[in-house]
């Protein structure tokens, strides 16, 4: 088993709130420069920047998990990860079907650009990606699992757009493969208040929207290899795989 540094929540220029510099190539280069071994691309309600980033990652030796940060009907953000292209495509169809067809206003919300590995713009998302899907959290879990993905509610302790802000507390019977917390708390602090969450493993990520924040917060995943299957095992704590959380770049808390 080997330790792999992993930042599993990163936005690209495709997210309206993602900075224009957040191209697949720039993200992969910065992640590698910061010593990360794996990252996940998790744009809001779209997977359309994943494959390019995975290709750049493959060419340069960085493992890139395909993901998405979904907005549930309750407006709680949830991460999902998928292994294969056809799974990403299938989930993209689900996203297209359930995102409200409200055009993005790029002056107010920001650009939603798809770029290639040379940072050339090749397309854009027409509908505003920060809106909520018309599917609740349980429905999202069911769909992600039907396709074979992993479901991890994002930054559950955040004051907005999180399970706790939207639902008051994490439902005791929540269906999930793990939970993400941000750097403003710790697993121990969460468990002191909500002991029933000890059945979950946690992850901590940068949630980077700007290139300088890539890898600000990361995990160390103990895996045999860098694969989706191994990451799933680590989330579940299977066969000795596990995830250590709350690592900070240069040991500094993000601003």
């Amino acid at each position, binding site marked *: 088993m080997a330790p792999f540094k992993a930042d599993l929540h990163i936005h690209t220029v495709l997210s309206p709130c993602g900075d224009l510099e957040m191209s697949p190539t720039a993200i992969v280069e910065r992640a590698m420069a910061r010593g990360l071994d794996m990252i996940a691309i998790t744009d809001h309600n779209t997977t359309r920047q994943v494959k390019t980033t995975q290709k750049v990652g493959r060419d340069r030796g960085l493992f890139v998990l395909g993901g998405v940060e979904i907005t549930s009907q*309750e407006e709680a953000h949830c991460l999902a990860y998928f292994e294969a292209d056809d799974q990403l495509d299938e989930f993209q169809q689900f996203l297209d079907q359930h995102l409200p067809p409200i055009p993005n206003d790029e002056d107010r919300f920001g650009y939603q650009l798809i770029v290639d590995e040379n940072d050339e713009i090749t397309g854009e998302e027409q509908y505003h990606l920060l809106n909520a899907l018309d599917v*609740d*959290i349980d429905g999202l879990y069911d769909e992600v699992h039907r396709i074979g993905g992993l479901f991890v509610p994002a930054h559950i302790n955040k004051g907005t757009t999180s399970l*706790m*802000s*939207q*639902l*008051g*507390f994490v*439902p005791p019977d929540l269906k999930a493969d793990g939970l993400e917390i941000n750097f403003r708390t710790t697993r121990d602090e969460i468990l002191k208040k909500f002991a029933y969450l000890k059945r979950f493993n946690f992850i901590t990520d940068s949630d980077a929207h700007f290139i300088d924040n890539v890898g600000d917060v990361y995990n160390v995943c103990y895996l045999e290899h860098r694969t989706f299957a191994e990451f799933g095992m680590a989330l579940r704590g299977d066969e000795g795989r596990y995830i250590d959380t709350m690592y900070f770049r240069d040991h500094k808390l993000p601003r």
Partner: protein
Amino acid sequence: MKVKELVDALGLMVLSGENGLDREIEGCYVSDLLSDVMGNADMGDVWVTLQTHKNVMAIASLKELACVVLVKDQQAAPDTLEQSNEEGIPFLSTSMQTYETVGKIYQLLNA
């Protein structure tokens, strides 16, 4: 004012918790963030929301609210309604949006 008087005055649909229609209404709180309701609603409040997650019922029970009014014809999940029946905290529904709903509630409670 009792919950059943509110039902009659606003023409609300009773989804569940009929055994709680005699509960006394002390006030009203409007929010779709459940953490906000948990922190700020008072006992005996009518809670007006469009959230339908089952945690709505849990918080209504925790805060001993008078009833929950779901706007825009939102429907609660079956397990939510079941718990509402058990605890006697009515779930009510209206086709009105929040603005009209709470405008009318305000008039009733401040008459």
